[in-house]
C-alpha cells in the first residue's frame, strides 16, 4: 500500500509544531522538553473550545496544522482518530462523581467521555460530513490507526486525516496507566501522485526477532516509551531527516507495520 504524506501536525514538550520540530527531530537542534503552551485549537468555535477537554484541544491543534499544510478543505477529508485511553481526565471526574452518594453526573461531562469526543469536536469545528473513526490498540494505537487510515486511502482513493493522541493520565488513574507526557500527532495521507512531496509504502509482516529498536536520542526514546502516540517518533524522525529509510512499528506481539519512506521534501 502506497500513500503520500501531504501534511504533518505535532505537539509535545519540546516539539511544538511540525516546522519548528523538524530540526530537533533531525538532530540539528537539541531536544529541550518544556511545558507545552495551552493549544489554541483555533478551528474550534469559542463555545466548544470553552467546554472542551485537553484531549480535544491537543487533537484539534495538530489536526488543523496538518490540514492547513495539505491545502485540503477539511470538509472533504474523512478522519481516523486513535488513542490508547481516550478521555482519561473525563473518566477520573466521572468516576469520582459516581463514587459519591448523589451520583450527579454532568450531562456535558458524560457526552465528553466517549472515545470519539475529539473526532466529534473536529467534525463540529469543520462542519464535515465525512466518515470518522475512533479506535484504540493500547500501546500500538498509532500503528493500528495508521493501518486503518492507509487502508482507507488505498481502498477509497481519497485523502484521510489521521490523528493520534494521548494526554498525561491524572492521579490516581496514573497508578494503573502511567502516562506522564502529552503527545499528539496528525498526518494527512493521500493517494500518491507524481508531485507528492513525501511517499510511504506500508505493509504488514510477521514480527521478527530483531524488534523495532530504540531511538538514538535517549530523551526522545523515553518520550516514545511513555506515550502510545509517541510511538510515531521513529516515523517522524525519518521524515524530518529528509531521506528514505525503513521504519518498523510493533502491532501486537505478532506483527510489525513496515514503513518504507520515499523522497521526503516536505
Amino acid at each position, binding site marked *: 500500500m502506497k500513500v503520500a504524506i501531504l501534511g504533518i501536525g505535532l505537539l509535545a514538550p519540546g516539539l511544538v509544531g511540525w516546522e519548528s520540530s523538524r530540526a530537533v527531530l533531525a538532530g540539528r537542534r537539541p531536544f529541550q522538553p518544556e511545558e507545552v503552551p495551552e493549544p489554541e485549537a483555533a478551528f474550534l468555535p469559542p463555545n466548544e473550545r470553552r467546554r472542551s477537554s485537553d484531549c480535544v484541544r491537543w487533537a484539534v491543534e495538530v489536526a488543523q496544522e496538518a490540514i492547513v499544510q495539505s491545502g485540503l478543505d477539511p470538509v472533504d477529508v474523512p478522519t481516523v482518530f486513535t488513542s490508547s485511553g481516550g478521555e482519561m481526565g473525563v473518566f477520573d471526574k466521572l468516576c469520582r462523581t459516581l463514587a459519591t452518594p448523589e451520583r450527579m453526573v454532568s450531562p456535558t461531562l458524560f457526552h465528553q467521555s466517549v472515545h470519539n469526543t475529539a473526532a466529534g469536536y473536529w467534525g463540529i469545528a469543520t462542519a464535515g460530513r465525512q466518515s470518522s473513526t475512533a479506535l484504540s490498540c493500547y500501546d500500538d494505537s498509532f500503528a493500528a490507526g495508521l493501518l486503518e487510515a492507509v487502508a482507507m486511502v488505498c481502498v477509497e482513493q481519497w485523502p484521510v486525516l489521521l490523528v493520534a493522541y494521548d494526554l498525561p493520565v491524572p492521579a490516581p488513574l496514573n497508578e494503573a496507566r502511567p502516562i506522564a507526557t502529552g503527545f499528539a500527532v496528525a498526518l494527512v495521507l493521500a493517494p500518491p501522485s507524481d508531485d507528492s512531496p513525501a511517499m510511504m509504502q506500508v505493509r504488514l509482516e510477521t514480527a521478527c526477532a530483531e524488534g523495532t529498536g530504540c531511538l538514538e536520542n535517549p530523551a526522545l526514546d523515553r518520550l516514545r516509551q511513555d506515550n502510545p502516540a509517541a510511538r510515531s517518533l521513529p516515523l517522524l524522525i525519518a521524515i524530518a531527516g529528509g531521506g528514505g529509510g525503513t521504519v518498523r512499528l510493533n502491532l501486537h506481539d505478532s*506483527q510489525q507495520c513496515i514503513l518504507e519512506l520515499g523522497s521526503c521534501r516536505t
Partner: protein
Amino acid sequence: MLRSVRPMTPLVLSAYTLVTANGRGVGPVLQALRERRSGLKPCDFEDVTLKTYVGRVAGLEDFSLDYEIERFDCRNNRLAWLGLQQDGFMVAVAEAKQRYGAHRIAVVMGTSTSGILETEHAYRTRDPGTDGLPNWYRTRYRYTHNMFSLGHFVRTCLGLQGPAMVISTACSSSAKVFATAARLMQAGLCDAAIVGGVDSLCHTTLYGFSALQLLSAGPCRPCDEDRDGLSLAEAAGYALLESNERISGRGAVALLGYGESTDGYHMSHPHPEGAGAVRAIEDSLLRAGIRPEAIEYVNLHGTATAANDSVEDKAVYSIFGARPACSSTKGWTGHTLGAAGITEAVISALCLTHGLMPGTLNCRRVDPSLKSRVLRENQTGSLSCVVSNIFGFGGNNCSLVLGKL
C-alpha cells in the same frame, strides 16, 4: 471535490452469534422476536436507584473467567466470553484458521464503555488518606477498562495473530467494525475478519443518559407517539466475515454495503434534517451497487428518544419513501450502545434467513408525524435485501446493507 463511492465485493457472514437480554444464542433471540417477548425489566443492576428499565443479560454475576484468561475478568469480558460460546462460533473460527492461518484473520471489535465498571468500583474504594486506588485494580486497567481490552481478549480467546483493533465511536462502534474489516480485507491485510461488539451495563451510562434526560421510565417505545426515551441494555455479538470469492456463499447472508458519515453538528443531538444519516444510507446503497427500491426492510436505529426517531424518519423517508417496511427492535433488546451495530446486524441476518419482519415492540400507536411505513405487527415473507441503521454520539452514523446471495 467530488468523491465517488466504489462498489464493494460482498462479504459472507459465514458464522454469527448473539447474546442479549432475550437469551444466549440466535435461537432464543429469534424465538423472542417471533413471540414478541421483550428482554427489558425494571432496573435491578447493582445498587442503581434510577426508575428505568434495562436489558440485563442474566448470569454474568455467577461466574468468573478461567485461570488462563483471569486477568481479563470483568463484566464486559464475561459477556464477550459468553458470546463466543454460542452457535458453534469458536468451531467456525477454528476452521477459518485452518483455511487462512492465524496471521491472516483480523479482529475488529466495537464497544463504547469497555470495562469501565471496574474503574467505577475501584474509585469507590480509594484510600481516604492518599486517594490511591486499590491494589487489585492497578494491574487490571489494561485488561478490563482500556478500550482495547475487548479486542485483546477476543484475539487471545480465539488464538488469532492478525491485525486487531477496537473501534469506539459510541453507539455506531459495532456497525463501523464491518466497514473497517471490509477495508482491511480489500487492502489485502487479511483474508477474513472477526467483527463484533460487546457493551455491558455500568453506572457511567445509566447515570449519564439519566442526566441527559434520555432514559424512559418504562420499557422503551420506539416510534410511539408517546415515546419518552431509551432503555439501556447489554449484548455481545460476533460475525465471521469471509470473501465470497474464497468460500461458496450461495444462499448465505452477506454484507453488501456500508456507509459512514458524521453530522458535524452537535455531540449529543442529531442533525435536525438527518443530513448525516442520509449520507450514510446513500453511501451504503452505492457500495452495495443497488437502488433504494431493492430494499424491502429497514431495521431502524429507533432508540425511542423523541429526537432520534423523528430525525431518522426524515432521513429514511427522503431516500425510500413509504415503500419498505421499517421497524426498531430495541423494544426487545434495549439500546446496547456499542453493541447495537452487531446486535441489529445479526437480527437483520435472522430476518433475511427466516423471512421475518419484526413489528416494533411496545409501539402502541405510531407517531402520526412519522412518514415511513413503521410496522407494528410481525410480518413474514421472503426477504432478500435489508438496511440496518446505527447513529451515535458525536454525530457518528453508519448504515449497513445486508442481503442473501
